[in-house]
C-alpha cells in the first residue's frame, strides 16, 4: 500500500492520505472518489466562481469584469425595489403553495396508506406520473383549464355560481395552483414513505380508547408522519420559492418571481455581477428560512409526541 502512496503527486497525496487514514478500505474510497470529484468540479467549483463574480465591478461592454473587486452587485440588490419585490413575491407564493401542498399531501398520503390493491396502485401511479413529467407540460396544462375562456370558468358560469369569468390565469391564483401541482407529488411521497412504516394498531388503540376518527388521525397519524411532513415542507418550500416555470408561464405581469428577475438580469441585461449577487442573496435567505422552518416543525413534532 505504501508503494502506491509514494507514487502520487504531492498535492494529491496531501488530500488522499488523511482521507485514507480515516476510512477502513482503500477500495471503498476509490469507488466513491469519482462522484466526490464530480460534485467538486460541477457543483462546488461553479459556486465558488459564482461567488467571485458577484463581487466584481459591473462593466458595460463585457459580461463581467474579471480581476476587479466591488460590492456594487449586492448594493444594487438591496436598493432596487423591483429586486426586493420579486424576493418578497417568491417567498409569499412559496409559503402559500407549501402550506396548501403539505396539508393536501398529508391527507393523500394517508389515503394511499389506507388503500389496498388496485386503488392503492392507482393512487400511487397518480403521484409518480406527474413526478416524472416535465415542468413545462405540468404548467401549460393549466391554461385551457383556468384561463377566462377555460373549462373551470365555463363550468362555474354555466352553474350560475359566477356571472363574469374569473381570471385565474394569468395571475397569482394560477401560479399557486400550478406550483401546488408541481410540488404535491414530492410532498405526498415523502410523507407516504414515513407513514408506510407506521403500525396501524396504534390508530386502532386510539379508537378503542374513545378517540373519534378525525381525532385519531390528527393525534396519532400526524405526529408519526412528522419526519415525512418536515421533509415534504422543506422540499415544497425550496422548490416553490425558487420556482421559474409556474410564475413564468402562468403569472401575469405583476407576478415577478425572483427566478424571472435573475434570468432577465443575466440573459437580457448581461448584468452578471447583479444576477449572481441576487442569486446568492436569495439562496442565503432560502437556507436561513429552511433552517428556521425545520426548527419550528421539530419543536412542533416534539410537543405532539409528549402530549
Amino acid at each position, binding site marked *: 500500500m505504501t508503494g502506491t502512496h509514494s507514487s502520487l503527486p504531492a498535492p494529491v497525496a496531501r488530500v488522499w492520505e488523511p482521507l485514507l487514514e480515516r476510512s477502513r478500505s482503500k477500495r471503498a474510497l476509490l469507488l466513491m472518489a469519482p462522484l466526490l470529484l464530480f460534485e467538486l468540479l460541477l457543483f462546488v467549483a461553479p459556486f465558488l466562481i459564482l461567488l467571485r463574480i458577484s463581487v466584481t465591478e459591473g462593466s458595460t461592454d463585457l459580461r463581467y469584469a474579471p480581476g476587479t473587486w466591488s460590492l456594487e452587485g449586492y448594493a444594487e440588490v438591496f436598493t432596487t425595489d423591483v429586486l426586493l419585490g420579486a424576493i418578497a413575491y417568491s417567498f409569499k407564493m412559496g409559503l402559500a403553495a407549501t402550506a396548501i401542498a403539505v396539508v393536501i399531501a398529508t391527507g393523500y398520503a394517508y389515503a394511499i396508506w389506507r388503500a389496498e390493491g388496485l386503488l392503492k396502485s392507482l393512487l400511487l401511479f397518480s403521484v409518480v406520473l406527474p413526478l416524472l413529467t416535465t*415542468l413545462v407540460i405540468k404548467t401549460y396544462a393549466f391554461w385551457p383549464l383556468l384561463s377566462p375562456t377555460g373549462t373551470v370558468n365555463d363550468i362555474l358560469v354555466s352553474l350560475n355560481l359566477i356571472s363574469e369569468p374569473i381570471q385565474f390565469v394569468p395571475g397569482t391564483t394560477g401560479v399557486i395552483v400550478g406550483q401546488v401541482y408541481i410540488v*404535491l407529488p414530492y410532498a405526498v411521497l415523502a410523507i407516504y414513505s414515513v407513514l408506510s412504516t407506521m403500525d396501524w394498531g396504534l390508530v386502532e388503540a386510539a379508537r378503542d380508547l374513545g378517540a373519534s376518527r378525525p381525532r385519531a388521525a390528527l393525534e396519532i397519524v400526524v405526529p408519526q408522519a412528522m419526519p415525512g411532513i418536515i421533509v415534504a415542507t422543506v422540499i415544497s418550500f425550496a422548490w416553490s420559492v*425558487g420556482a421559474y416555470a409556474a410564475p413564468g408561464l402562468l403569472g401575469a405581469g405583476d407576478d415577478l418571481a425572483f427566478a424571472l428577475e435573475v434570468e432577465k438580469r443575466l440573459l437580457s441585461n448581461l448584468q452578471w455581477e447583479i*444576477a449572481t449577487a441576487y442569486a446568492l442573496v436569495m439562496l442565503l435567505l432560502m437556507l436561513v428560512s429552511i433552517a428556521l422552518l425545520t426548527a419550528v416543525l421539530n419543536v412542533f413534532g416534539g410537543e405532539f409526541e409528549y402530549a
Partner: protein
Amino acid sequence: MHRETIEDALFRASYLSILAFMLLPLAVVVVTSFAESGQLLFPPENYSLVHYRGFFEETRWISAFDNSILVGVGTTIVATTLGVTAAFGHELDDGRAGQVLAPLVLVPLLIPPIILGISMRVYFVKAGMDASYLSIILAHTLWATPLVYFVMRSVFSRFDWRLLDAARDLGAGPIQSFVYAVLPNVKHGIFVGALLAFIVSLQEFVMALFLSSHNTETIPVVAWTTLRQSLDPMVSVVSTFLILISIGAIAVAAIATNLDWLSKQLS
C-alpha cells in the same frame, strides 16, 4: 354508525378529487393534442390528427427529439456509473468520505435549478464549452445522480454481503466477485436507477434552457420557448409523447420492482 358513513364518504370524496387534480391536467394535454383548431381549448370542438402530422414535418421538433435522446443517454451512462460505484463504495465503508458524500449529492436537488443553471453557464463559458451537449449532460447528471445513488444505497442495504465475502474466499478478484456475486442481485435496482436518470434528463428544462444553443436544445426547451410566444396544440402533441414515455417507464420499473417500492425510492 351514521356519522362514520359520512366521514367515510367525505374522506373518499376528498382523495378522489385530489386524484382527479393529479391526473386531469395530463389528460387535458393528451386530449388537446387531438384538437383540430389551432386554439388551445378543452375539450376541443373537433378532433383531428393535424398537429401530429405537423410534428413530423417540423425539423425543429425532430432535431430536439434527437438532442433529448442523446442528452438522456449520456446522462444515464454518467449518472448510473457515478451513482452505482459511489453507493457501492459507501456501503463497503461508511467512513468520513461517505458522511461528506451523502449530503453533497443531495444538496443540488434543493437549490433552485435557475441558480444551478446560472452557475454552470458561467462555469462552462469560462471553460469554453458552453452550449455543448456535454455541458447539458453534466448538468443533468447533477440531478440524476442523487436518484441513482439513493436507489442503489437502498438496494445495497438489502444485499447479503456474505455472498461477496464468499466469492472473495473462493478466490474471485474484486471485479470478478462484483460481476458474479453482486451484480445479479442488484441488476433490477441498477436498471430502475438508470431509467429514472433517463427520465429526469428527458424532462428537465430549466438548466437545459441556460446551457443549450439552437443546435443543442432539447424537447422541453423548445416547448418552453414555443409556449412563451403562443399557446399551441403542437406542444400538446410533444407533451403526449413525453407522457407516454413516462407511463412506459413507470410500467417497466413497476414490473422490475413494484410500484410501492419505486414510489418510496423517489421521495
